[in-house]
Every structure is written in C-alpha cells, then in structure tokens.
C-alpha cells in the first residue's frame, strides 16, 4: 500500500501541476479538497480521468468522487480494491 500511496501522490502532483509540492508534503489523512491541497472541480475531473487511465476504474457516478477523494489513504484503498490494471 505504501508503494501505491507514493505513486498516487507523484501522479497527483504531476497531473494537477502542483508546483513546489512534494509527496511528503501531502498528509495521508488530510482532505484533498477544501483546506487540504486546495484542489478545485477541474482537479476532481482530472482525478476521475487518472483513475480510469492509470487503474482502469471508471466512475459511473462522478458524485462518488467526493467520498473517494476524501484523503490519500481513502483514495489508495479504493484503487487497491477496484483496480483493473
């Protein structure tokens, strides 16, 4: 799981252009949206694309993103349980 968490942080930084943010700056339990990394709705859509592109997970209900993107830990757990690649 630690490997997936690191990979996920690196992907998020790259895909969302989080300039100056390092993987170790992202708290595994902190919310990704709102006070956490300050991500916006476009970032949420990019994360949905990332899920499908990298892990073969297609979110049928975009509203579910709110739950899945709760934190890095929640995000990684969801991927490990649902990934198709």
């Amino acid at each position: 799981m630690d490997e997936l968490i690191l990979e996920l942080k690196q992907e998020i930084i790259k895909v969302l252009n989080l300039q100056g943010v390092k993987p170790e700056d992202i708290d595994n339990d902190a919310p990704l949206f709102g006070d956490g990394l300050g991500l916006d709705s476009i970032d949420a859509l990019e994360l949905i694309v990332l899920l499908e592109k990298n892990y073969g997970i297609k979110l049928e209900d975009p509203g579910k993103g709110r739950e899945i993107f709760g934190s890095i830990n929640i995000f990684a757990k969801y991927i490990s349980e649902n990934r198709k690649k």
Partner: protein
Amino acid sequence: MGLIINKYCSITPHKVCVDGLKIFDINDQQSLEKSLVQTYRNLELEYPKFFKMDNLSKLAILASECLLKNTELYKIADKGNVALVLSNASSSLVTDSNYHLTIDDPKNYFPSPSLFVYTLPNITIGEICIKHKIYGENIFFVSEHPDASALYVYVNELFERTNTEYCIAGWVECNVNTYEAFLLLVGKGSNGDTFDVKTIDNLYNTK
C-alpha cells in the same frame, strides 16, 4: 476630456518592459514554459493557480500583473468599471491541439478537463478578471495582426456607452513558434500619452 494611456507594458521572448523601460531580461534560449515561470518568479507573484493555466493565460496574467502593479487600480477592491479588450492571431490553437491529442486515439481516449477549459481565447480574460477582481465589459478579438484602428474605435465606444473608467487593452499572442504580450491601461485624463491610433502603433512597434 480625452482618453490617455496611463501605462503600458510588453513581454517578448527577450525582455519584459513597462512604459518602454526594460525591467528584466528573459533568457530567449529556454523554452516558453521556462520563460513564463522565470517571469513569474521575477515578478515575485504568489499565485499557485498560475501553474495550472495554459501558456496563453499565463502570459496574459504576467502582462496584466506588469501593467497593474503599483497603480491605484491594484488597490481598488471593486473593479466593476474596468473593461478588458484583448486580441491575438492564434486564438487558443496551441491548447486546442494539445487537447485534441487527448481525444485523437480511440484506444487511448482520455479527454483532459484541465486542457479543455482553456480551449477558448477569452478564458485568458476570465483569468485576469479572477486574479484582479475585474467585473467590467470584456471582449476578445481574433485578427491576423494587431489592429490599432479597431482597438481605438472599440475602446472609445466603451468609454462613451458604458460606465467604463479604465480599460486594459492590447495583444496577447502565443503560438508554437513565439509569443508576445502588449497591454495598455487606458483611462480618462490629460497626463499621459494620448490614446490614438498613431500612438498605439508607435508604442507597439518600439516595444
């Protein structure tokens, strides 16, 4: 009372100028992306959203910062009477092409939302408005070359027919080969260069 040019600025691959004076050089041997980030750092901007923008919007944000910094407009919270009139030749073509790459291959079809939102040139106006809390009239023209006559006519109309007190007007072009931004801050008054076709052309050609 006529219209005057309160301030003007330009960003080209070699330098950044304000009111005709170079404020710093840009290393023209580096990529556009690096030049834009270098300019961002030199201007000491603290605006993380900058890094999420496409190059056209980054250029527009940097030029608007050069133009508005140290002006009284920078401090006014409600800018409902500030208009924006921008133009360029390539529209958002570079970003359009980049977005197309994400949807071109049916076997690798992952449309990028963050690219899609920049597939219109007037998004650059939106970014400037968000950054500086500007709520006035705005329009983005696409024309082959900077057109001082059209700019002069349109900006004058805005001042005559709307509540416009200031107008940020000019050219923000970014294509695969090069880039340039040239912005004017136009206002009412008598202390400054007269806002007319000849002056606009002169300032643009000597930038």
